[in-house]
Structure formats: C-alpha cells, structure tokens
C-alpha cells in the first residue's frame, strides 16, 4: 500500500471509529452492496423457474409416431408430444383448421390442428405436435417444425434430386 507496510498499521494508527462532538458516529456503516444480492436472488428465482418449466414440459412424453401405444407414456389417453414427418400431399387447410398426417418408421398418424402452423411448416419436414389422440387422430394445439442438422443451399442440384425422389422423410428409414 502506498509506500507503507500495512502490517504496521495497527501499531501506528488509531483505528477506533471516530465520533462527532455529540457522540454520534462520524461516518455511518459502509453501505451494503444490495445490487449483487438482489441479482443473486433473481438468479435463484430464475433458475428455479427454468428447471420447473423444463420438468413440467417433460411431463408430456416426447414420442415418435411408431411408439404410440407401444412405449410407456405414449398412450392415446394422455397429452403427448408426437414427432414425425409431414406426409407428402396430406396437408389440407379448411376454415382455419389444418389437417395433415405425420409418419415415422413406417407408422402414420392423422393430425388436426386448429390454426395455421408457423415456421417452415410444409410437406416432408419433421414436426413435433403437442396434443391428445382422440378417435385415432392427434388433436394438436401446438405444432413445431423440427429442423434437421443438414444445411443445403436453396439452388443446390440436390434439391432437384430430392424433388425427383418425392417425400423421403428422414424418419422413414430410421
């Protein structure tokens, strides 16, 4: 510290708290650092919310179409998240309701969704539909498009090849 040995301080300097003439403290206690404490509290709350929401979302089993009625939790009488690829030519939109079918590993499931799916929803693309299976069809209330880990240029010749091959969903041969 500025040209001095801090270990000598106790001998050389009177470190008792100073008081005013009336006996009150000359300087108040050092203010507590409230902002980091508040941020830490918010961090704990946010962490709790994140974990809770993750666990709550996990309550809806994430099933592939071919697992319905086969895998535990992928039953027709409960809410699930169902993954499959949108079948070619299956999309029908009528008065705000979108109907289509999804397939995975050779199994297929009709889907009825009250609305128009967002994102890059189209034929031959993997989707995850949230809902309940009723009367043999998944009554979806949320449709999410699942993008694969492949990135292909829009003008790539492979697009033409893929078009020639028709809808060849990745899950169909999985």
């Amino acid at each position, binding site marked *: 510290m500025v040209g001095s040995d801090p270990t000598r301080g106790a001998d050389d300097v009177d470190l008792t708290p100073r008081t005013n003439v009336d006996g009150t403290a000359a300087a108040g206690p050092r203010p507590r650092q409230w902002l980091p404490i508040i941020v830490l509290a918010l961090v704990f709350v946010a962490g709790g919310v994140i974990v809770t929401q*993750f666990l709550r979302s996990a309550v809806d089993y994430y099933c592939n179409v071919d697992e319905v009625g086969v895998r535990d939790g992928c039953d027709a009488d409960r809410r699930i998240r169902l993954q499959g690829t949108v079948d070619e030519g299956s999309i029908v939109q009528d008065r705000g309701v979108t109907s289509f079918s999804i397939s995975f590993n050779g199994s297929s499931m009709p889907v009825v969704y009250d609305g128009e799916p967002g994102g890059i929803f189209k034929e031959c693309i993997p989707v995850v539909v949230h809902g309940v299976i009723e009367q043999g069809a998944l009554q979806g209330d949320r449709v999410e498009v699942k993008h694969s880990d492949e990135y292909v240029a829009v003008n790539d010749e492979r697009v033409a090849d893929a078009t020639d091959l028709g809808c060849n969903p990745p899950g169909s041969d999985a």
Partner: protein
Amino acid sequence: MTTTDHDLPAQSSAATTSSATGTRATRIIGIAAIVALGWLVAFGLGFSPADRDQEEAVRILYVHVPTIWLAYLAFVVTAVASAMYLFTSKKSLGWDRMAGASAEIGVVFVAVTLAVGAMWGRLTWGVFWQWDARLTTTALLFVTYVGYLAVRRLGGSHHQRARRSSVLGLIAVIEIPLVHWSVRLWRSLHQEATVLDTDGDIDMDGLMLFSLFVGVVAFTLLYVWLMLHRTRTMAMEDIVEDRGLDAALAARRAEGEL
C-alpha cells in the same frame, strides 16, 4: 500499492501503470476484428446462399453458432484461470481478473445466442421459445454465470472475491458438456450438432460452412480484444479501490501526527 497485489498474467502489467488500456497489439487485434466482422456481414448476408428449408433464416446461424462456441471458450477460460488462482502458490489476482473478464464476455455472448436463437426459432420452428433440453440448459448456463458475476461483486477484499468466485467458476463450467450433449441426452426440438458432431460428417453447404468459419474467426478476435481491455480495466478498478483505502489510512496517520 505493492506490485504483488496487482500482478497479472504478463499482458496487463504495463496497463496498470498507464491510464489507457490500449496498446499497439490491441489496436491491431481490434482492426482485425472489425475487418473480420465486415467479412462476416459480406458472407453472411451476401455471398452465402439461402437454405433449402430455412431460406434466409439460416443467416442467423452465422452469429448464433459462433457466439455460443465463444461463450463455451470464455467459460472454460474462466475455469482455467480460476484453477490457476486457487491451485498456484502465488495466488495472482491477475488470474482472478482474467476469470472475471472472460465470464463477463461469455455472458454477453450467451445472451446474444439466446436472443438470435429465439428469432431463428420463430422463423423456423414457429415458436420463439420452447422448454426444450438445449434451450433450457443454455438458459441455465446464462443464469449461472450472471450469478457468478453477482458473487464477484458481493464485497470483501480482492482475494476474498477471488477465492469465492474461483470455486464457483470451477463448478459452473460443468454445465457446458450438459448443454452440448443435451440434444443427445434428451429428445429435443433443437437439431443435433452439424460441425461438432462425433461421426465426422459435416452436412453443410461449402459456402455456408465458410461463412460460419468467418463468424468464428470474427467473434474470436472480438473476444480476445474485449478480454485484453477488460482485464486491464479490472486491474485499474482494483487499483482505484485500493487507493481509496490507502487514502483513508493516510488520513488516519495524519491525524496521529497532529
């Protein structure tokens, strides 16, 4: 001020005696970062093609992916610097400041990742957010390191700060493999890794991959530039704080001499 109170891993020692944090090296790195970011804009928005499925939304990935990779790197640097502080006999505060600076930059990069990822999600998945394994663990990573930064500011001496934050820095880094492997550990809406996958196949158009590479270079240079300046700024902050204490002690001594 004794020099041992503020000793640093080499690069910052000059800055502690200067009023500025810039050097010839930082200026060169800064200019290189600007040039690389310009290249990223050119390739990301111009030369690289649109994606067959995502169309123009793919361009978001040239920021989204490099920022999370650099955030991983930043948090690993935090952990390594924390270990160096804790497990070396010198207990150099330079390591502590390096850990803190890297964590700050990492938090900013994760925030950028989450923000642009939400935009990409809306355009591609159809939703801004989903409590999916990858998204959830990334959000948890962000919150953890915000907590780390808050812990650094709880007060006490520089070495108290360094000790408690080093322990946290070493624990928090465990989250990184969890984030990266979350898409394999759980079924996830988020796609699996394309470049950092284990099978060695990179299913990405060549120009897209190059644009991603430019993004990684640009953000790496930005990270290095920010690190150099921030560690030096932190050293100066510690000096200013200590000078306040020194001034108070000097005032008490002056009282005694009256």
